[in-house]
C-alpha cells in the first residue's frame, strides 16, 4: 500500500490479487460478528442433508467484503471508496480457495475518480462474485 497518483493510472491496469481460504474458524467468527445463525455456514450435516449443498457455504457478503478489500488495500489513504456493487452469482464451499482481484475500467482525472471491475474467482478460474467500484482520489 502506497500513495497512488491518479495521473499515473491507466485503463486495463490490474489491482493486486489475493487468495482467501475460509476455514470453519473464520466462518464461525464472521457469522458470529454479523449475527448470522443460518446453519449452512457452520453445520455441515444439516447443510448437506437438509439444504442439499455439497458443503458448508462461504457467505456471499464475506466475499463482498473481500471485494471491498481489493480496492481498499490497493488505494490505502490515497482515496475514498464512493460506490460499490456486487452480486453472488454462484455458491462457494468450505475447502475452496478463492482469488480476489480487479482491473481499472475508467480514469477521470478532472473528477478525480477511478472505476474498476472487481472479482472473486474460484479455483477453476470462474468469476463467482463480480462487482464494480468507484473511488475518488483526494
Amino acid at each position: 500500500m502506497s500513495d497512488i497518483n491518479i495521473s499515473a493510472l491507466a485503463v486495463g491496469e490490474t489491482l493486486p490479487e489475493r487468495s482467501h481460504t475460509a476455514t470453519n474458524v473464520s466462518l464461525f467468527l464472521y457469522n458470529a460478528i454479523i449475527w448470522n445463525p443460518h446453519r449452512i455456514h457452520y453445520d455441515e450435516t444439516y447443510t448437506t442433508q437438509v439444504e442439499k449443498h455439497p458443503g458448508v457455504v462461504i457467505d456471499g457478503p464475506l466475499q463482498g467484503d473481500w471485494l471491498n478489500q481489493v480496492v481498499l488495500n490497493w488505494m490505502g489513504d490515497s482515496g475514498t471508496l464512493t460506490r460499490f456493487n456486487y452480486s453472488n452469482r454462484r455458491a462457494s464451499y468450505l475447502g475452496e480457495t478463492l482469488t480476489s482481484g480487479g482491473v481499472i475500467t475508467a480514469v477521470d482525472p478532472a473528477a478525480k475518480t477511478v472505476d474498476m471491475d472487481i472479482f472473486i474467482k474460484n479455483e477453476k478460474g470462474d468469476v463467482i462474485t463480480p462487482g464494480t467500484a468507484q473511488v475518488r482520489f483526494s
Partner: protein
Amino acid sequence: MSELISEDARSWIGRSGEPQRIEINRSDIVKYAIATEQRQEKYLKGDEAPPMFMYGALRPLVPMDELGPDGISVDKFLPELPLKRVMAGGTEMTFHRTVHPGDVIVATRSLSDIIEKQGSTGPLIFVVYDLRVETEAGELVMEERQTRILR
C-alpha cells in the same frame, strides 16, 4: 402479466420499516476486522469501520424463539409470496461518510419493488429494498439497494 405477485403483495411497494438505531462500538469493529482478515491498522484497531461492517451491524436481533430450525429469522418486512427459498441477490452501495466508534446511526429500509422473472430453473421473484443510513444528527452515511431473490 404477474402471476406470482398478488395485489396485496404489490401494495407493500413503497412501505418503510421501523428505523433502526445503532451505537457503533470499537470492539465490534475489531471483531469484524479480524473475521474478514482486514489488513489496514485503522480497521484492525477499530478506529474506523470497514465499509461492509454496516451489513453485519444492521442484521436483525430477534429473540431465540423467533429463529427457525435453519437458524434464520423470518423477515417480517416481506409480503406473502408463493416462492419461499431466499437467496441474496446483488447489492449496490454509495458511501458518503466513514463510520467510527461512538457514532450513533439510524437506518431505515424501504421495500422499493417486487419483480417477477423467469430463471433458467423456474420462476424467480426479485424483492428490492432501499436502505438509508444516517447519523442521529441526520448526516447521510450510506445508501444501499439490496435485491433478494426468491425461488
